[in-house]
């Protein structure tokens, strides 16, 4: 019960909000203090991308954690993780558009058409926009819970696209170790949901997989 009391403490949400901003503070201070090596633009693009993926994983981990650890109070942080994933995705897209493309719309469009992994990343970004836009309570009420939930299942697709984007980017260097770690995390989080829905849809209880 100690964990639940901590999770519902009035300071918990503001504290988590500040913690979620720490990566941004770390990245920006590193760039301003010239501690990120001689290619700060590459560093900004890559670090914002990896933090977006980390927050996406955190948002997707809330429900499995809630069920498996029996901590219903943890659900109140899901929206914040999701919105921070969006914030870091926006920073990622902005860094790319600014530092890699110099904010030239024509160059960006050509680039999306030419490099498949950019197209995949942009698609994931576009899919996240309606989710971020309908994240507040009134939008949930306006859509109705079931329609809202159906819409927000798009996040599973976003997670898949994010992994593909990362994989394709690293494939150029034949360097898959880090990608595989995130792919395994996302696969576990989505796989757990898949198994659960199969179990739920059957008229009889799901067999115990551990027996």
């Amino acid at each position, binding site marked *: 019960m100690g964990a639940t009391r901590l999770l519902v403490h009035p300071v918990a949400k503001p504290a988590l909000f500040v913690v979620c901003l720490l990566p941004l503070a770390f990245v920006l201070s590193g760039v301003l203090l010239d501690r990120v090596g*001689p290619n700060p633009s590459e560093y900004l693009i890559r670090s914002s991308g990896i933090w977006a993926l980390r927050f996406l994983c955190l948002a997707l981990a809330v429900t499995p954690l809630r069920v498996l650890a029996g901590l219903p109070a943890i659900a109140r942080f899901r929206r914040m993780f999701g919105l921070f994933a969006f914030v870091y995705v926006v920073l990622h897209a902005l860094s790319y558009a600014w530092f890699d493309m110099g904010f030239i719309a024509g160059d960006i469009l050509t680039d999306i058409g030419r490099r498949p992994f950019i197209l995949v990343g942009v698609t994931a970004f576009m899919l996240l926009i309606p989710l971020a836009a309908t994240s507040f309570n009134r939008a949930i009420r306006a859509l109705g819970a079931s329609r809202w939930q159906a819409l927000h299942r798009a996040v599973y697709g976003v997670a898949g696209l994010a992994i593909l984007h990362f994989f394709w980017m690293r494939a*150029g260097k*034949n360097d898959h170790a880090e990608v595989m770690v995130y792919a395994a995390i996302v696969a576990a989080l989505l796989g757990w949901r898949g198994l659960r829905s199969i179990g739920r849809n059957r008229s009889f209880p799901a067999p115990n997989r551990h027996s």
Partner: protein
Amino acid sequence: MIIKSSDRGFVHPVPGEITPKAVYEQRREWLRIMAGGAAGAIMASWAARCALAQAPAGAAPGKLAPLPGTRSGVSGAMTIEKVTDYKDVTSYNNFYEFGTGKSDPARYAPAMKTTPWTVEVEGAVKKPARYHLEDLLKLGAMEERIYRLRCVEGWSMVIPWVGYSLSELIQRVEPLGNARFVEFVTAADPASMPALATRVLPWPYTEALRLDEAMNPLTMLAFGMYGEVLPNQNGAPVRVVIPWKYGYKSAKSLVKIRFTERQPPTSWNRVAAPEYGFFGNVNPNVDHPRWSQASERRIGEDGLFARKRKTLMFNGYEAQVGQLYVGMDLEKYY
């Protein structure tokens, strides 16, 4: 007198691309003002670094044994562009034997043992030989050459190398009539190279050139940079530098040079042929699926908010090497 020409990096198709002197000088003025704290403490430290970085370019950093070279007379070998900071060249590069991160070479390469060192020259040559490094150092007169280096990842540097044309060694060993390619085999020492345990690339790393490319005077056997011997992370004790090709073609820490009749397989080409061609010529018109090759960021010079600069055909060495590829479809032979 300095004659400004495209050989020396002055490629300005439109006079409007040249920054007016008054505007250029304002930059330092601004940096001085900012370094004085006018823009807050953090910006001041950043500006101070830039303001201090006006020291003469290419000065020996005094870290390793000196290896002086005389100014090269080879056409195109002495660009007068601003030389990249020694610190950036030695802390940000790819040397996959030591890891895939850009700072891994600087971190792990010091453990590599470079003495004694021998380079075996074999294959289709009349005089195969096993050269001790000391003998290779004496084989040609040491020249300093300031080359642009363009990485396939879209960044570039300007580096003063010390060495001599590879052709001097090639003439010495007398290639046979059937020799058409030169293969470079690099060091693979599991004791000092942690990434040999991974399968990112087939080890040892190998690269190759067509014999006429290897004979071009710009193709260099380098032993030093910035007036000193090469640091381990930059390919000590001996490497090739081919300035009109993407960086991956310039193999580091050579242990073997082999002359062959057939085109040898090369490491990056083996793992991802659509992305890394055998030729690897810098070409802004042929894109890599991961990085646009139309433009590049000059490390340490083009600021975060500056537009990237246009990449030049053959990295600006078209006058010197263009004739090697006459009649070839460069979209196909990338």
